[in-house]
């Protein structure tokens, strides 16, 4: 891809970037969710994306795998432009990725084992059932759910579902894993185990990792680099230390979990109304 290297987005072509995004804009109707974003995800590193709810984190990583197509801009996977590929070609590219959906997206007509088996039967050359089953069991053990093979998703708790989905995302040992809020809904101990799992995959297998999260503890623990999105733009980008000391007030508020005076003003103004609405309920007549 000679042409990609001429592009001004990144000075040294796509360099070390496994996923490179250039001038990406994504909007839904008039709602501009991502506004001209340029970004390079480095090979073998863990990049954490933070930002307030609804700022477009999920939309961003869905663009990485072209589950959503950008309105303008380019997306490269290993120097190959992918945002304009037809579905058939995209499917080949996608087998290099693991994607953990925010809501899990488990197949509810399959049990846990079958869910994790799905990518294996679809893409690996493993034909020996026993061997495939061993992989499933190993992945389930990694997320602490060995023994749940025959459960259906409906019978699992939210956190368990998330972990099964995680096991499914890593079933094929992908080179790139995109996690959408892997620790949301988990207890702190389990969250820490998942953090360790993410780190282990990255360190031992050199997996390029992108994690979307609100959980700053997790972000500080796993990140080589933290990116903060706000109003469709990247407002901070650097290692944990850089983010901690970032001067931007929005960044400080986010990492310290403090609402701004503006945000609170709305609540204060409405508190009188809220009191007024504490009315007798129907059954009290």
């Amino acid at each position, binding site marked *: 891809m000679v042409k990609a290297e001429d592009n001004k987005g990144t000075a040294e072509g796509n360099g070390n970037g496994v996923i490179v995004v250039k001038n990406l804009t994504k909007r839904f109707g008039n709602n501009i969710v991502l506004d001209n974003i340029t970004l390079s995800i480095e090979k073998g590193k863990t990049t954490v994306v933070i930002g307030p709810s609804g700022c477009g984190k999920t939309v961003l990583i*869905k663009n990485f795998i072209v589950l959503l197509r950008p309105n303008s801009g380019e997306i490269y996977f290993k120097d190959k432009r992918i945002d304009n590929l037809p579905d058939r070609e995209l499917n080949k590219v996608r087998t290099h990725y693991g994607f953990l*959906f925010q809501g899990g997206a*488990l*197949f509810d007509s399959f049990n846990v084992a079958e869910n994790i088996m799905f990518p294996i039967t679809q893409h690996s050359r493993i034909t020996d059932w026993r061997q495939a089953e061993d992989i499933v069991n190993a992945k389930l053990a990694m997320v602490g759910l060995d023994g749940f093979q025959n459960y259906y998703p409906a019978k699992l708790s939210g956190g368990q579902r998330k972990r099964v989905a995680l096991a*499914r995302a890593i079933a094929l040992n992908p080179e790139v894993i995109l996690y959408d809020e892997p620790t949301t809904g988990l207890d702190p101990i389990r969250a820490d185990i998942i953090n360790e799992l993410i780190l282990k995959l990255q360190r031992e297998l050199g997996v390029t990792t992108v994690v979307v999260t609100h959980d700053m503890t997790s972000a500080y623990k796993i990140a080589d680099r933290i990116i903060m999105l706000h109003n469709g733009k990247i407002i901070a980008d650097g290692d944990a230390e850089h983010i901690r000391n970032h001067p931007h007030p929005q960044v400080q508020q986010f990492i310290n979990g403090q609402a701004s005076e503006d945000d609170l003003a709305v609540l204060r103004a409405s508190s009188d109304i809220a009191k007024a609405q504490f009315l007798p309920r129907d059954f009290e007549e």
Partner: protein
Amino acid sequence: MLETLGAKTIEDLADMGRFGRFAWRSIVASGWSIARVTTYPLIWAQMNIIGVHSVPVVMITGAFVGMILAVMAYDQLAGMGLEEHLGVLINVSVVKELGPVLTAVMLAGRVGGALTAELGTMNVTEQIDAVRSMGTDPVRYLAVPRLLACLLLTPILIIYADLLGVLGGYFIGVIQFGINNQAYWKFSAYGVDLWDVAVGVIKGFFFGTAIAIISCYKGFTCKEGAEGVGQACTEAFVASFISILALDFGLAVIFKAIYNTFWPLKSLVG
């Protein structure tokens, strides 16, 4: 006003275009699937889900159609002293028109509704995106087995409906109204030939394909939430129903042309 109307027309046309593309892709992918034995278990699973439980309803539908026709037509024919011809009337109608159409409508409700609801729910819970994210084509994995199952099963179910329709007519005509048994069957055999049965069964392939493609498309493009799924199911049924009638009309015209071309030949040989 004009603007919204224009925008709606454009949106409708775009939707038609998307549907056309989807239909084309599913049909091409079906051809691809048939050539690969590894996809057969998926098709088989769908055939079980779609087919087995449809048999009783389809049989009941067929039986009632036959019986209703008998009750309705008997008096008129008897008035002209032609009641022995009742069998021809019932059996031709059942085998050529009512059996296939009513079976298809039944399936559009029963199978099409379930398909749209299932795929629609998968869509809103991101399961279809999940299939995609793992590098599998959801059309190939989800739509094609359903399409092939419907395509293969609708004609078979039509045969069931036909059989029960004929029996229902026989039950009312001969057993209830006491038409002479031998005469009933003699006229029936004379009036209904293989062609009539074949027409009905061939219609089934078209109806099944239409139901499956429409229902899958509506599921795949279903809007968010429980309401979205409900709406998709309604739209899928209405669209399937209209398509069945339109196809029935189109096929009737085509089959008539074919029959007229070959009939002279047949009579020469026969």
